[in-house]
């Protein structure tokens, strides 16, 4: 349902994604792994429609061209990004924010808006999924939240927004084992035949909890290798060094750590 073809992205003239190809079918979970600087977050932002990038190539979701759309239009089309560094918005409370978001998307799709009481039910269910306390609703968006709370809030929002495509950008960064467990179980509970996911991560650890159907290695702006979940285990053992120069003549090698080129 997601077709990415020859995707390029630059910032201020510096190329970061250099021709990325990826196809994702319905209900599939794809992991994208790569060394620092490979373009993982840029890929997530390019899918989300963030300003500041010069983008080329094509990205279609359910046959619709995403690259022409604004971020809110993409949300209405069913794209959800779980951010690596969720921003704090003091003064805007979580309940109001979520309800507004949900209703905006419903309006865009021509659906009826949800009323306050029904929304509370949706919110409570999502909160329980990630073990969030009830006072969450009155607090400001991510303000004063611990790292773990911020990541759980992202998954909570995913549960409320019910996307077609969820892109989780390093959802595990900064989490201890307990927080990781909660986040992962939330993500797994949201897997389904109508929903696909891209799980972006640097470490294999998250994939122990969220088992991917496919794993891709992103190095220097391109996908250099794809495989099933065993590829992740290989990366765990061998690091990224092997892939850094793999089949890419024009890319200067950047060994991860002292490994021979």
């Amino acid at each position, binding site marked *: 349902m997601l077709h990415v073809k020859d995707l390029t992205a630059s910032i201020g003239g510096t190329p970061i994604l250099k021709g990325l190809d990826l196809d994702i079918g319905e209900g599939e979970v794809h992991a994208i792994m790569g060394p620092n600087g490979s373009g993982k977050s840029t890929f997530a932002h390019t899918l989300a429609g963030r300003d500041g990038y010069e983008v080329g190539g094509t990205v279609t979701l359910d046959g619709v061209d995403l690259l022409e759309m604004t971020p*809110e239009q993409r*949300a209405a089309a069913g794209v*959800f990004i779980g951010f690596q560094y969720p921003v704090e918005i*003091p003064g805007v409370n979580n309940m109001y924010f979520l309800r507004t978001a949900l209703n*905006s998307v419903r309006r*865009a799709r021509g659906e009826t808006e949800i009323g306050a009481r029904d929304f509370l039910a949706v919110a409570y269910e999502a909160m329980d999924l990630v073990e969030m306390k009830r006072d969450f609703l009155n607090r400001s968006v991510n303000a004063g939240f611990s790292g773990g709370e911020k990541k759980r809030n992202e998954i909570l929002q995913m549960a409320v927004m019910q996307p077609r495509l969820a892109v989780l950008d390093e959802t595990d960064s900064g989490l201890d084992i307990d927080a990781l467990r909660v986040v992962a179980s939330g993500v797994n509970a949201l897997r389904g035949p109508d929903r696909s996911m891209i799980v972006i991560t640097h470490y294999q650890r998250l994939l122990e909890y969220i088992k991917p159907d496919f794993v891709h290695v992103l190095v220097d702006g391109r996908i250099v290798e794809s495989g099933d979940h065993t590829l992740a285990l290989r990366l765990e053992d061998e690091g990224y060094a092997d892939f850094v120069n793999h089949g890419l003549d024009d890319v200067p090698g950047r060994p991860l750590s002292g490994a021979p080129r």
Partner: protein
Amino acid sequence: MTTAATAALASELSPEAQLERIAAIGYPTKRDEAWRYAPHATLHQLSFGPSGAVDTDVLSEIDDQIPALDGPRIVVVNGVVDEARSDVTALPEGVDLSTPGHRVGGVADRLAVHPDSAVELAADAFVADAFVALNVAFGGDGVGIHVAPGRHLDAPIHIVMVSTSAGTHNTSCSKLAIQIDAGSSVTIVETKLGAGTEFSGGNTRTTISMGDNATLDHIVVQDVPSNQVHLSRTEVTQGAGSELRARLFNLGATYSRLQYDVHLAGEGARADLSGLYFGRGDQTLDQQINVIHAAENCTSRQAFRGVLDDESTGVFNGAIEVRPGANGTDAEQSNDNLLLSNRAEANTQPRLEILADDVACKHGATVGQLDDEAMYYLRTRGIAADEARRLLINGFADQAVHDVGIEALRTWIAQRLGHDDE
């Protein structure tokens, strides 16, 4: 104090003496730093005189505007207490109402009850500010509130000051004097409202003295209509270990001046001021905030936000002043402004005047726009750009509202701001 001295003091406080003083010191001009952005042409149209009669029909329009809070309420119209609208039956024990005693007969009465207020009264007679002098002269009896030591009051005391044009002059003066004795804690809410459509003005002054270890939550909302000018001045003196939390909202008037001076006079006192000014139309909202550290180990915080729309102008002139010997001072100040239109203006002067050395002071001020990252985040959640902007602007303003500890009041302020506080 001797009878002769009392009479002399009373004479200095008389309108005649005060008018002479004004002739000597003059009115503020554009050259005065603190009046740099004030619309002087408009101020020159203000006329003053003794508290006069009021048009009761016009007055009735404020009745639905007054927020309903639990606790005693005193309504003052053009400087005179409106008995019918006030309700002091719930006045708790240990709280006395009186007058600040500026009136001729009043001085002797006040000194009889509070002999130590002689110094205060003398200071009032010689303040070097024309508008204070006018307030002393024409503020009439005003309202005095005295809280005895060791009282903890749950319900807030609500003072509503209403100004409306009436009689031979267009500007009224109101006085409020509050004394909180040692160890007591109280919440005082002041709402400033206006009635009528004629050009008029209000000139209010509140003096607060806090004894050692007293606590005060002071919430002020200034929201008079745009056919009025509003000049307000609050002076707080804090004793050792006392704690002040002030929440100041400046929302109305064609020119609305909110001056708030805090004098940290006793060791270990703490002052926490926050506020919001929200300008629309061609209003000028002028904040003059002065926190003076005159004792050791005091802490102060100032956090003010301005949102300026249409052709409005916001002014923030906030000072942290640390006097010699005020060692161990910990002071911070921040002022953040949002401009929503091409014709709005933000002027900010965050000042530091430091004369002691063992201090930690910092301030920051910004004028700018909404956070790009926050806008992006909201849009990825499907919220269109316009609505995302509105959410963020309201969020920016609401932070000041959230600091108000009384729910009914929060809701009321949010309504006055034109949006629901969720």
